[in-house]
């Protein structure tokens, strides 16, 4: 499961996460810990979640993104979700995530 960590990179204070095919509680808890470690040690200003490979996500993933949003508010940072498929975008909207982060169903905007 820790191969997820290999898909996290930092450049110009932007933390980029290439997410796996399915996001559940197990994946979310690994990401929560690692992203918080990066946020607090590398002065991160932006987080980009790349859903290009992701087909499925449950509410654990929403909680994980929501929690990182709260953290980023302290540094006035922002969060973007890119390459989000239709299903995951609608799951995000159900939880109101579209009101606080930018969600792009296609390429980066």
């Amino acid at each position, binding site marked *: 499961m820790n191969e997820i960590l290999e898909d996290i990179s930092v450049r110009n204070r932007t933390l980029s996460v290439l997410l796996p095919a399915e996001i559940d*509680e*197990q994946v979310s808890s690994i990401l929560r810990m690692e992203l918080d470690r990066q946020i607090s040690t590398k002065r991160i200003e932006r987080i980009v979640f790349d859903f290009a490979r992701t087909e499925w996500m449950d*509410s*654990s993933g*929403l*909680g994980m993104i929501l929690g990182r949003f709260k953290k980023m508010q302290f540094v006035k940072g922002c969060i973007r979700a890119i390459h989000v498929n239709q299903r995951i975008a609608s799951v995000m909207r*159900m*939880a109101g995530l579209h009101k606080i982060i930018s969600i792009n169903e296609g390429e980066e905007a």
Partner: protein
Amino acid sequence: MKKDQMKLIFEASSSNEAFARISVAAFMTRLNPTVEEVADVKTAVSEAVTNCIIHAYEGYERDRPVEICCTVQDGEIEVQIRDFGVGIEDVALAMEPLYTSKPQLERSGMGFAFMEAFMDALEVESKPKEGTCVRMKKKIRASQTKGD
């Protein structure tokens, strides 16, 4: 169509989450579901199993069984997910969208709302100190056009 059934018992640990939802998804393929319908059921199962892992066995070191019982009949899948943990004091409150008993853990509070949204029927029974049983049903459309 004849009735088919399966039962799974596994430990409430996050490493079993993928196994649980994929097993149910595999079992329902006989109904010839769409990709979307499979994703709906996987989400609902995942939400219920995550509840067992995060909430049901709080303070239990060992002996944390989750029991999934699946039935398919007449183009419908019924999934029953049961734990024998702490139970829910106020089921109606727990089922409210955005409610979470663990805000410090950054839960989205959408678990029951998703089960409700992605399935056709949802029933929750719970007794403190005895456990919780979630029963969900979903009609699979494709299966209705196929005789058996």
